[in-house]
């Protein structure tokens, strides 16, 4: 019999197929401290997966992802899928999707970039290559590949 490792949630979001070991980074993006105090957050690390071998899963009750958070997850966990749960049923399931432009999610790795100065401006990157993803700063033209270390 399959063992149920995470209890079902009534309403919320399930982020599945996260590359093994990245669940805590996903939690950081979600900003768990901002989640409603009566909601449950479940994290499964190192779960067997047919597709990935091993994967992580994050379930958050009573929260739906903002586009900005969804973009950030797409960057660090491009294999992830997002399921929206309403009344215990999966109402929507989609792979994370990387838009053409990523605004406000990452810091530019160039310390001398104007977006790292005290200016009223958000960082902005263009997706200049997919698989593997390469982003280019829309301001200073610097490329970034190591997204994990540059999350804003």
């Amino acid at each position, binding site marked *: 019999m399959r063992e149920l490792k995470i209890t079902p949630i009534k309403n919320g979001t399930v982020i599945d197929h996260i590359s093994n070991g990245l669940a805590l980074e996903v939690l950081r993006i979600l900003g768990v401290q901002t989640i409603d105090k009566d909601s449950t957050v479940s994290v499964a690390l190192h779960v067997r997966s047919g597709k990935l071998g091993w994967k992580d899963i994050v379930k958050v009750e009573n929260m739906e992802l903002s586009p900005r958070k969804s973009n950030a997850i797409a960057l660090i966990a491009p294999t992830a899928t997002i399921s929206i749960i309403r009344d215990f049923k999966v109402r929507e399931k989609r792979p994370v999707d990387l838009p053409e432009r990523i605004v406000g999610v990452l810091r530019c790795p*160039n310390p001398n970039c104007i977006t790292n100065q005290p200016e009223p401006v958000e960082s902005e990157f263009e997706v200049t290559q997919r698989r593997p993803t390469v982003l280019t700063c829309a301001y200073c*033209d610097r490329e970034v590949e190591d997204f994990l270390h540059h999350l804003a």
Partner: protein
Amino acid sequence: MTLRGRDLISVRDLSREEIEELLASARKMIPYAEGTKAMHPLANKIVAMAFFEPSTRTRLSFESAVERLGGTCVTIADASVTSMRKGESLHDTIRMLSSYADAIVIRHPSEGSARLAARASDRPVVNAGDGAGQHPTQTLLDLATMHEAFGTLSGLKVVLLGDLKFGRTVHSLAQALALFGCEVVLSSPPSLALPDQARRRLRQSGARVTDEEDVRRAMKDADVLYVTRIQKERFGDLAEYEKVAGSYRIDAALLQDAKPRLIVMHPLPRAGEIAPDVDGTPHAAYFRQSFLAVPVRMALLDAILGGPRRGAG
């Protein structure tokens, strides 16, 4: 030309055709830049020179270009006397300037500042150097110098020599050369080699790129030797600097092996990379290159801002 009202932040904002049109227009501007003819397409236009770091030749050649076209300038030549010292952001300073002028020319020490300025301003913005980033009008005048010497850019063999890592002029120049099907030879000490990102982009744009550390071998069959300044402050060890700088010094004796028509270029100011004995040889093109800054910047400002011709003749 479709440049009217547009920003110029990076040379990649221009197509090959647009660059060719600008170069053709710059050639026609030469007598106007010399002052032997007069035209006033920028009459009643004000161009703001927003220079947030020291610059002499870039600022003066832009101011001269505006004046030769019949326009006037308002200038910030020293950021320490502006409200930025009181903590005003670049964004707000540019926003303010754009309500005083018809176009803004900006130089700023931070990369990406010109892009930010373009977004803050509802007037066209021209990048005159953003930190180690782009300097598109320098690239245009470099191309103009080569075009004047050879009548074409296609198929030229261009050696980029010296500091290819930090020298901001070479990255955008290399990109533009790729656009014209030039053969690019990169000649630098390993510690100052072209960064991977720039190299990858060059290859992606179909450029023929080779590396040759030895200056003599790099120069073989070359049409253009583009020399950049090797900056002392990039080296922790002064002895290492002396060694590197010494092996990339161009003098008249070295040029005896070069093609007779080879031109030597340098964005100036030079600091010993080119010996004074080169100045008197037919190879020296760097002073012509610095003169062409004016007609090239005139062509650009005219394309972006110019009205109907008045007083031309």
